[in-house]
């Protein structure tokens, strides 16, 4: 199945991957080591299945918005993912960082002081100062703004601009994520201050960001925007580094099949998301396209809701259902062999440093054991209809998942078949995303198939503490609650990690979910687009370093694939 020629770039990377380096790192190395010159100019065309909407640090809406914010705004430091850890780069290491230095006021202090570079300017020419930072955090905390990142400011007591280039953060307590929470992208005070904070989403610069009206600090600004079609980004002249590309066009693709066609025809330089079922077609028909992946930050799960199905209250029954599902077969059936591994718990492999999910054995496929457990619990097929029953009630439930996701639609069909083999009748219900997710959060479902993309901090208390919205199985284990509370109050990551690890183990023992697999996010990248760094921090993170060889800079739409 693998075509060695097309994958050669990959094979070279495999070793590096073992050392937990991402693909992008490899291509970067190649660039630095090889003597190939880097060209400037050219237009990269990126296909996305969602549309950009509000690329602004306080009110961004989608993952794509977040990626755009990441290349349009600077933060005090620039977080990056290296060796399974978040690191925070200062302006020494990244042009995207505003601070050249930061320090804790005392060894166990709850305050951090940042020293900002001089000469920073917004795209409209106004200077970027510490007051912008203070204003951004004040506004973030304002409940009327309802910012999706509001929780980042929850532990921040105050942000004080001491002078134009020095700003100090005072936190409520000492905890591991202090630098992370103070690295949010900074928004320009002079543009947004004074308006109604509740109406910031309809601010003129957000409704019409084009023509550089949206004031940014990062390498790119919005040059034009045809709604429903494409957004064009152009270099911000006031950014310290000149991007190599002349333009980036983000095309709103409505349909994954036509999008793949565009990719194959060479009309696109980049496409996400790429479905696992589309890989083979891409390999066979588009030799000029390579597949890049964002490492396993996501896991797919089956959630058993004990509130609606009494049988799910029994840990052993949940475990038996998990044993009935052949995850390796599922992975093969969904054609994701090279991009997914069976999952064992709430920490995907990117958290190797905290919790080695590979060391924890995933639940083994063992239908006989599953049958034995179910028999022992009184579930027998007494009326010969192929479905187990107890006290006259058949073991039957409905699994809810969202429509519009081919992988999940395929997965539920295989799961249904496998549960049927052990005498459990699972019905399938698909609802579109908005309805399905609100059902999950209101616990109005029986079983659910979904997936989580984890936050980059090991703190998972939002998902496993009682009465949290995202605790969709109403999981409540006093021991786990205690461990999570203790872990969250540790001053450093090194002290917190063992506690998180213990909590995770307890959760795995209870099997509130059946964890299916950890999987990569896939992207298609054309062979002319160079220098992309893709890791858990998203594919856009170094867009100013992307480049296209001079001889291939013609508009992609007009050329035919060779």
């Amino acid at each position, binding site marked *: 199945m693998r075509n060695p020629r097309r994958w050669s770039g990959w094979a070279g990377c495999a070793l590096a991957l073992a050392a937990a380096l991402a693909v992008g790192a490899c291509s970067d190395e190649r660039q630095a080591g090889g003597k190939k010159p880097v060209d400037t100019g050219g237009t990269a065309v990126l296909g996305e299945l969602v*549309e950009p909407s509000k690329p602004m640090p306080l009110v961004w809406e989608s993952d794509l918005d977040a990626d755009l914010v990441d290349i349009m705004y600077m933060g005090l430091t620039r977080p990056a993912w290296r060796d399974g850890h978040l690191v925070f780069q200062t302006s020494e290491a990244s042009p995207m960082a505003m601070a050249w230095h930061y320090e804790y006021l005392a060894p166990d202090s709850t305050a951090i002081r940042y020293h900002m570079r001089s000469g920073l300017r917004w795209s409209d020419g106004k200077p970027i100062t510490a007051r912008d930072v203070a204003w951004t955090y004040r506004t973030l905390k304002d409940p009327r703004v309802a910012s999706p990142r*509001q929780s980042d400011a929850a532990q921040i007591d105050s942000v004080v601009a001491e002078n134009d280039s020095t700003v100090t953060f005072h936190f409520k307590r000492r905890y591991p994520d202090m630098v992370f929470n103070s690295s949010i992208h900074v928004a320009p005070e002079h543009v947004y201050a004074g308006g109604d904070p509740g109406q910031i989403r309809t601010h003129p610069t*957000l*409704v019409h960001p084009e023509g550089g009206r949206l004031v940014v600090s990062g390498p790119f600004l919005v040059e034009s925007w045809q709604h429903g079609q494409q957004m064009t980004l152009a270099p911000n002249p006031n950014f310290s580094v000149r991007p190599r590309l002349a333009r980036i066009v983000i095309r709103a*693709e*409505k349909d994954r099949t036509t999008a793949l066609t565009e990719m194959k*025809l060479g009309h696109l330089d980049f496409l996400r998301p790429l479905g696992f079922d589309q890989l083979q077609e891409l390999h066979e028909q588009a030799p000029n396209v390579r597949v890049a992946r964002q490492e396993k930050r996501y896991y797919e799960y089956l959630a058993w809701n004990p509130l609606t199905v009494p049988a799910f209250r029994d840990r052993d029954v949940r475990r038996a259902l998990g044993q009935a599902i052949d995850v390796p077969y599922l992975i093969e059936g969904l054609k994701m062999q090279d991009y997914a591994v069976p999952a064992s718990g709430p920490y995907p492999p990117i958290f190797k440093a905290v919790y080695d999910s590979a060391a924890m054995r995933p639940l083994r496929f063992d239908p006989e054991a599953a049958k034995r457990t179910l028999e022992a619990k009184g579930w027998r097929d007494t009326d010969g209809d192929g479905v187990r029953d107890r006290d006259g009630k058949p073991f039957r439930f409905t699994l809810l998942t969202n429509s519009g996701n081919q992988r999940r639609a395929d997965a539920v069909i295989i799961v249904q078949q496998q549960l049927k083999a052990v005498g459990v009748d699972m019905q399938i219900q698909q609802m579109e995303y908005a309805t399905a997710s609100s059902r999950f959060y209101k616990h109005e479902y029986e079983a659910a198939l979904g997936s989580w993309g984890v936050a980059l901090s090991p703190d998972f208390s939002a998902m496993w503490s009682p009465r949290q919205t995202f605790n969709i199985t109403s999981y409540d284990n006093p021991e786990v609650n205690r461990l999570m509370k203790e872990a969250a109050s540790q001053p450093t990551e090194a002290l917190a990690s063992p506690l998180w690890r213990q909590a995770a183990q307890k959760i795995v023992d209870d099997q509130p979910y059946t964890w299916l697999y950890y999987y990569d996010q896939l992207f298609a990248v054309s062979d002319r687009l160079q220098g992309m760094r893709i890791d858990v921090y998203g594919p856009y993170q170094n867009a100013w370093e992307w480049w296209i060889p001079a001889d291939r800079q013609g*508009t992609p739409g007009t050329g035919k694939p060779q």
Partner: protein
Amino acid sequence: MIGYLLRRMLGAIPLLLGILTIIFFIIHLAPGDPTARFFSPQVSPEVIEQMRHNLGLDQPLHIQYLKWMKSFLTGDFGYSLGQGRPISEIMPEVLWNTLQLTLVSLVIIFVVGMLIGIVQAVRQYSVADNVLTVLALFFYSMPTFWFALMLSLIFALKASQWGWPVVLPSSGMATVGTEWLGRGAILRDRLLHLILPATALGIGTAAGVARYMRGAMLEVIHQDFIRTARAKGLSERTVIFKHALRNAMIPIITLLGLYLPFLLSGAVLVETIFAWPGMGSTVVNAIFQRDYPLVMATSFVIAVIVVLGNLLSDVLYAVVDPRIRAE
């Protein structure tokens, strides 16, 4: 005539208000919520609640309805929750995009449909007639979306694999980069992008028009004045295209307005498949995102178009048929 038109227009107002009221309550009573796309473990429930408050979704339904009605009557459609810009700005864009698509497919429908119908009528019971009848029935009975898929498979995807000289674009309205080229290149690019969706949208209806046209033509051809025209020694071309066609067109022309709702329905699927940023794909997205103001506005515009289409067909009928004007 003008009095009649005014009466019809006034009569349409309660009708439109009724439609909007029904849609309003259906979408608001249904499960789901415009803030659902913000749900993620990183966003706290309080933030979601605040968003709902900012959008006025925490008020009782009848208050929301009165508020919406009030701003609607003052001509303010509000902001789209999904796109975050005024609907008065979105609507002309998507409407114009859909109009381009529908107008081109209307041309296809009438030119292709009428030509086929004429050929069939003139050569009634010939091999050509039977073949065309079967073909028309085939296209008429074909699901639009399936035909659209097959078109994009053959003319966009396979065409490039097989190395055809022309590969038709199957997605969007413009090729990247054309905006820097000349006006002529932009127009040509747009027309290329229109071919597949307009064909997919129009072909079934064209088959329907062909059926009507054949019937209407047959009826006219056997009338006395055609025999007279022939007897006068007029060429067959003049007889068919000047005398017969003009009379046979009366019932066909009136179809023009009636096909509009049909085309708009079809546009939902075709625009989704070909990623054409028009009314159809907008309304589907708005429904899925629970973008209440946008759903209301698109429903309103669609209903207005349909009402106008009905009116148009009445007016056309009066224009082409003098007997009706006299009444």
